[in-house]
């Protein structure tokens, strides 16, 4: 990463952090419209397996993607810590189901590296980068990839 001489501020971005199956992920905050707790999701029969169903959020019908299922983990029951992150991408409004919401964090670009090919597991396909913050590792998600429903992605 090229260093700007006497940069007023190093390039940074604000992210929203959340947990799925014990791992911390991050989304750029401008992509997240809002977060909410949900009690139940209406299942949609014959939808892709990782689609939990639909919910009614802020007056709109929002599809819910179960991130555990998307990343290849077993589903877990909804509890009080489960959060729905409603994101927007390409004019679509989708809800991402996470186990737990963590914090807002500003991460400098310098702390982020592109994902290695070697990162195992399905979630490697959906990453924009990996951030190292001290001894903490945060995986930065690519929303478009998460929502992609091409035949190869259908789990």
């Amino acid at each position, binding site marked *: 990463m090229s260093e700007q001489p006497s940069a007023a501020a190093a390039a940074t971005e604000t992210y929203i952090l959340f947990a799925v199956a014990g791992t911390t992920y991050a989304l750029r905050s401008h992509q997240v419209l809002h977060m909410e707790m949900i009690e139940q999701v*209406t299942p*949609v029969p014959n939808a892709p397996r990782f689609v939990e*169903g639909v919910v009614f959020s802020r*007056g*709109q*019908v929002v599809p819910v993607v179960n991130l555990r299922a998307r990343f290849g983990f077993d589903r877990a029951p909804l509890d009080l810590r489960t959060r729905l992150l409603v994101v927007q991408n390409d004019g679509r409004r989708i809800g991402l189901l996470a186990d737990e919401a963590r914090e807002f964090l500003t991460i400098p670009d310098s702390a982020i590296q592109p994902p290695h090919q070697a990162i195992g597991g399905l979630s490697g396909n959906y990453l924009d980068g990996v951030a190292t913050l001290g001894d903490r590792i945060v995986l930065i998600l690519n929303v478009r990839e998460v*929502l992609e*429903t091409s035949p190869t992605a259908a789990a």
Partner: protein
Amino acid sequence: MSSSGQGPDFASGFMDDYFAEADEHLVAIRRSLLVLEASLGADLPAPILDDLFRSFHSLKGLSAMVDLREAEVVAHQMESCLRAVRQGDVVLTGANFETLVDGAKLLEAVIVAHRMGQPRPPVGRTLEQLETLARPAAKPAADREGGPASSPATPPVRPGEDERVWKVIFVPSPQLVERGIKVDTIRTRLLQIGHLLKVEPKVVAGGGISFEFHLQTAHGEQLGAWSDDGVSCELLAAVPPPEPPEARARPAAPDSAARAPRPVDLATAGPTNFVRVDLGRLDDLMRLVGDMVVTRARLDDSLQRLERHVPFQEWRALQEHNTGLERQLRDLREGVMRVRLVPVGEIFRRMPFVVRDLARDSGRRVQLDLVGQNTEIDKFLIERMMDPILHLVRNAITHAIEKPDERAAAGKPPEGTIRLGASTAGESVVIEVSDDGRGIDAQAVAARARAGGAPIPEGPIDQGALLDIICAPGFSTRDEVDRGSGRGVGMAVVRATVEELGGALAVESEAGRGTTFRITLPLTLAITDAIITHVGRHTFAVPQSAVREVVEVDPGVLRSIEQNELMTYRGATLPMVRLSDLFGIRVDPRPRLHAIVIGDGLAAIGLLVDRISGQREIVVKTITDPLIRVDGVSGATELGDGRLILILDVSALSRTLRDRRPVDSRVSA
């Protein structure tokens, strides 16, 4: 004429008409009173007084017809008061104007109480006050120009009921003088039966003199009796006696222009270009249109199947007609939906009264500007939006607008302004409630929310986040208890209502300058009747228009032939499809199932569900995202408890099923 003695349906329909008409009059009364208030202390606009008189007169008659005594009596008193004011017997001041307002409110309260089946409010005290008001204390002869006529005339007075203006001509003659009838005699007689507006001597051919009187009287019939005394008369229709220009008279319909004194036209002001429509009929119409859409879709299917059997030219003609039909049907559908549109002014018109009362009670001075009252929104939306908008307006007065001295100290005019505006923007209607009050201090609000335990990060709060904070359930503002914004409608409910209707709420505020709340609503609503069905743990809505019949089924009577289940139905075999199979839903065996019959004749199919829990009107939200676009589901709807259920796409379902099914299974029993 009383409504008793007729069947209950007739009576209730009659009452509905009464309430509808009464409501129209009450609205007109409210509006007129407000205009009148603005004119207190100056010339009261005659057309307004006439309108008020007319309205009370009509309400009196209507209430008598339905035996609503209290309303009749109050209306009668109001009518008397208005007559006294019109005649100049009573001068309206701030104090006695309030009595009029109280009377109007009481009248409304009585009618509303009757409608709700509640005990009627006591009317005695207000009636007394009205009676006192109507009694002319002293006659303050409101001196107006007598007109260019030479002779003195008594000041013209507002015409009472049934009074007319006559032109009376007296031709004196020596014979009449012998009988003691001179011009003064005639003049005295005329004064006894009415008011003289003008007296003018005229020179007649031959050098004689005649006298022309303009007389305002309710007793014109007496004039005929004096024809032997040299008196001839004629009703003055077109010639208006001179009258000072009316200040602030509305640029009104021609017949109510300032051509006073004139007889008040007690008939309603002519036919208008509007029809009052029963909402139920409108819904029926929309349902029919919905049915037509479904039928045309089936026509479409048949045509597609026909294509290979029909010569190209013929088929093309058919297809053209079909397309034409589709286009016309779409136009019809839009047209019918447009009939449901009503001007948003229906909500706005109640606001001036609310603002007036609340401003006065809270010691503020508020001016209300209404913009875009003709903007139209769906009737369904009007009803749901009344409370939210009321709440925003009340909030503006009790929270935003500062008291006059505080405003003056801030360099603002002592009168605060609230602007209520509506406009269309593409496919949406935008309603704004703005004020020039103290604005919302985002940081202060965030601090208060944080103090209450809300997890709000430090730093700048944008307008979206601000809205989230103030709309969060549990975010208490001090007004939740005070009368102004009471009744439990908080900001959370405002936002929830707006969003339930498919709209959005936004706020823009600048501390010290003012606040604007913006409500965006969809212009048209897809509302339809649906049958709510259950399959296992799932709930589906089936549009009523697609359903031919609902039949209870004993699973034991179903017969299986090859892959299909069949049932005997109306002398034929009905293929059945289990929704649980179609959608891969796990179900427990049940002793009874329900079949929803869709399609007609040979194309009929029975959809098997576990049970049916009723029928309701639903607002259809289409499903567009590819992730959830599945065959057989066309949309979703919110049941009102936050739960979303899916709406079945019946025609797509039947198409899929029909194509799947081998033809020879459709066997008549």
